[in-house]
């Protein structure tokens, strides 16, 4: 349905479940895709699966210099950078009263500051091209909060405010900036939960099941498409009705 032929897309956190699905969806729509992540092996495996139109671009998102360089590296490898998907994220869950400065800072650095750096580094080329799509992967907990995740929730809520501000600034240049906010998605992380835990989670979801990475990827694909050109500053919640925002 959505055709991204001739477009170039950079996806961070492409070694994970959701990031991998996003990369597959964009690639499936015809885009040249840059796979970024810290772990090289899963990136290479995904690249092998996708075949052509793929570039593996490893990057440690806690290294500010590497993050600043990534958009340039990606644009050089792919011949441009039209679509940026900031999907990479980490958690360091802890009861708030016991949350260390390091728990706080490391999550903010990777989830929010690296997203800012990648957006900043990508917009110049998008301005010149008079076309660009930024899709930042936030989270339901950025809107609702979650016990034990003050750092993660703050980073994901911060992403929403930042994305809206960017959207304002660059809307007149044909660039959109939006967030996708996943709810509970079945990934390697949620596989570790036992059935009892899963039942409790599912009971809170009107759709009575966890989402799939492909369902997040479909939302990203839409926001990255030509057709979504009038959608900007939005947060698309994909959560089975768990929070209707």
């Amino acid at each position, binding site marked *: 349905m959505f055709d991204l032929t001739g477009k170039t897309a950079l996806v961070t956190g492409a070694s994970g479940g959701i990031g991998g699905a996003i990369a597959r969806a964009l690639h499936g729509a015809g885009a040249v895709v840059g796979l970024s992540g810290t772990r090289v092996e899963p990136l290479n495996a995904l690249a092998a699966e996708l075949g052509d139109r793929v570039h593996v671009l490893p990057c440690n998102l806690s290294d500010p210099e590497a993050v600043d360089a990534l958009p340039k590296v990606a644009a050089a490898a792919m011949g441009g950078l039209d679509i940026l998907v900031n999907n990479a994220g980490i958690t360091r869950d802890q009861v708030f009263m016991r949350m260390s400065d390091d728990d706080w800072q490391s999550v903010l650095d990777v989830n929010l500051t690296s997203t800012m750096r990648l957006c900043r580094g990508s917009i110049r080329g998008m*301005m010149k091209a008079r076309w660009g799509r930024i899709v930042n992967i936030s989270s339901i907990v950025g809107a609702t909060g979650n016990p034990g995740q003050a750092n993660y929730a703050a980073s994901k809520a911060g992403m929403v405010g930042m994305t809206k501000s960017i959207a304002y600034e660059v809307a007149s*240049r044909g660039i959109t900036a939006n967030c996708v906010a996943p709810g509970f998605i079945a990934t390697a992380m949620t596989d570790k939960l036992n059935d009892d835990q899963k039942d409790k989670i599912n009971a809170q979801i009107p759709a009575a099941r966890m989402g799939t990475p492909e369902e997040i990827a479909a939302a990203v694909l839409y926001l990255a498409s030509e057709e979504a050109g009038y959608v900007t500053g939005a947060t698309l919640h994909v959560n089975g009705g768990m929070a209707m925002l």
Partner: protein
Amino acid sequence: MSDVADRVKKIVVEHLGVEEDKVTESASFIDDLGADSLDTVELVMAFEEEFGIEIPDDAAEGIQTFGDAVKFISDAA
């Protein structure tokens, strides 16, 4: 008028869609030529490309008028 000034003027006229005679030495991009803050960023990007130079952000902030731009670029080139 110098070659640099001619090339800068051409960029300004094209980018901001203003009459050439409005682009005077003291003409402010924002106050006189109708640029918004994003236009000024784009002008600097266009200057960098045209002249093959780097204009650091703190220097870019000091480029408010057509004259400022011509002087900075003449000094840098």
